[in-house]
């Protein structure tokens, strides 16, 4: 009986498990192995073990450390901004004042767009002929030359971060809003009878209650952040002068422009490691003592 049941179960699971193993698990193992080889990506027979050479090279590669730095800035700043905006606007929408539905829909729409489209929309807002520069120069006459939102190395990364926050803050808002719906009203009321103001109620009742949600959302933001590719690829292709280079765009260039497949694989291992570490942080963020 046990055996028969296990076999019946295996039949249901098999297609997904096979697909998963071949197209996700195997590539992960393969990329880790490739990271210890030197290979131009063409002939499989020419793959040669190179030990930790690739990782040693990463250590002395200035472009890699620049890309890593930009990725960390992107992930850190966008995660903070997404959660501040997400929670703030969820609280605002939760007041159910007139217009809350409008804000909800306006924040929701970008979630359905391709990051490629987001990149194009923001290029058209912030480009030299974009809306913002037109406003600054033609309408308000506060500048005579356009601001290089995408062309100025000091500004470009912040432009990419802005576009990412615009696209995904609705995601955080929806999750926080859902969390707020099960807020214990009696505790809030008890707090206000005890004389707690709005801030104290938020700080000592709402926020601790939401902590598990915050943990999940932050981890999802971190994992999503390490994935950033097309926003940068389309908006700036990593430029100007590597000012927006991130790990995934550098990997893409090494693998598909320079045919340095072994070296690119070592960058992939770094990306996978960062995502794994982020996922493991959830329990700690939630304050679980397991």
């Amino acid at each position, binding site marked *: 009986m046990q055996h028969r049941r296990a076999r019946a*179960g295996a039949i249901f699971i098999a297609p997904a498990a096979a697909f998963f193993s071949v197209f996700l698990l195997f*590539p992960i193992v393969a990329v880790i192995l490739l990271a210890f080889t030197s290979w131009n990506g063409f002939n499989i027979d020419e793959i040669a073990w190179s030990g930790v050479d690739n990782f040693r090279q990463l250590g002395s590669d200035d472009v890699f450390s620049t890309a890593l730095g930009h990725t960390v800035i992107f992930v850190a700043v966008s995660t903070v901004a997404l959660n501040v905006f997400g929670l703030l606007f969820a609280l605002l929408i939760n007041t159910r004042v007139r217009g809350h539905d409008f804000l909800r829909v306006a924040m929701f729409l970008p979630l359905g767009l391709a990051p490629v489209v987001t990149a194009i929309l923001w290029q058209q807002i912030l480009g030299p002929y974009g809306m913002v520069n037109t406003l600054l120069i033609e309408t308000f006459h506060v500048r005579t030359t356009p601001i290089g939102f995408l062309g100025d190395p000091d500004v470009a990364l912040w432009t990419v971060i802005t576009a990412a926050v615009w696209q995904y803050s609705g995601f955080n808002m929806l999750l926080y809003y859902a969390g707020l719906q099960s807020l214990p009203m009696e505790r809030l009321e008890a707090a206000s009878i005890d004389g707690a103001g709005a801030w104290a109620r938020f700080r000592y009742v709402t926020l601790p209650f939401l902590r598990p949600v915050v943990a999940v959302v932050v981890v999802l933001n971190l994992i999503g952040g390490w994935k950033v590719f097309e926003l940068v690829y389309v908006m700036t292709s990593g430029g100007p002068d590597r000012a927006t280079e991130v790990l995934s765009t550098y990997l893409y260039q090494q693998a598909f422009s320079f045919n340095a497949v072994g070296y690119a694989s070592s960058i992939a291992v770094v990306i996978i490691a960062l995502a794994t570490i982020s996922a493991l942080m959830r329990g700690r963020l939630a304050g679980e003592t397991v």
Partner: protein
Amino acid sequence: MTAATPAATVAPRATTGARSSRPRRFAFSCVCFGIGAVYLIPLAWTLSLSVRTNTDVFSNRIVPHSFRPANFSDAWSQFGLGILFEHSAIITVGTVVLAVLFSVLAAYGFSRYRTKMSEVVFIAILLGLMVPPAGVIIPFFVSMRQLHLYDSLLSVIVGETAFALPLGILILRGFVDSIPVDLTDAARVDGATDWKAFWYVVFPLLKAPIATVALFTTISTWNGFLLPLVLLHDPQRSTLTVGLSRLQGQYGALNLELVSAAAILAIIPILVVFVAARRYYVQGLSAGALKQ
């Protein structure tokens, strides 16, 4: 069973709402409309560009002084959007069918035929949720080339399916777990096979979560970029996203109005689906993220 959106069912009034003074509610209202408008600016601006004449686009005006809907037909024919739409549609439909099929079966298997081994496989598949596409794109590309699937829509379909499975299985398993075992046991007592118990008893109850999984898969696949970029050879005969990125690079500086029109055309189908099915999206978020 069909958990409606939290917003629809939960009655308790918001914390600040009931008590707030009228001036404060008015101020909150203004903030809602103001921020909402800011969120809509990028879409509105591109929409306004898409109906201008070329000279109007570069005239440094905020408000359009021209109206040229022919941009849409021009963009369609000049940029060969037809083939891009077709490819995006084939890949999306193929991926949704495979992902839904495989994740429904697997979710049922994981839920009803639980063994130590199956739980290990379940956890392993869930770990797929955090795999960044860039991390595995190299072996993926190499395998597809070795299998002679490079430059085929099928290669993109199997790749997108692999990335869609973990979330699909997670969402669906939660729902299958909530269906009483008595239901399927009763069917078995009546002589139904495993397969029949699944198909006639459980499957019909899964319509809402299946819609959720289909919606998530549709969005991620229609909007997907890295897989078609790497796996399809010619960007002019790739998917909409890859095609748009090429157009933006090539014509973004000269024919902004046509690129804008192309972008608007590309997002209309997905936004229609997204807005029409938003209920399922919100359900999926709660089921997928908050119950972990």
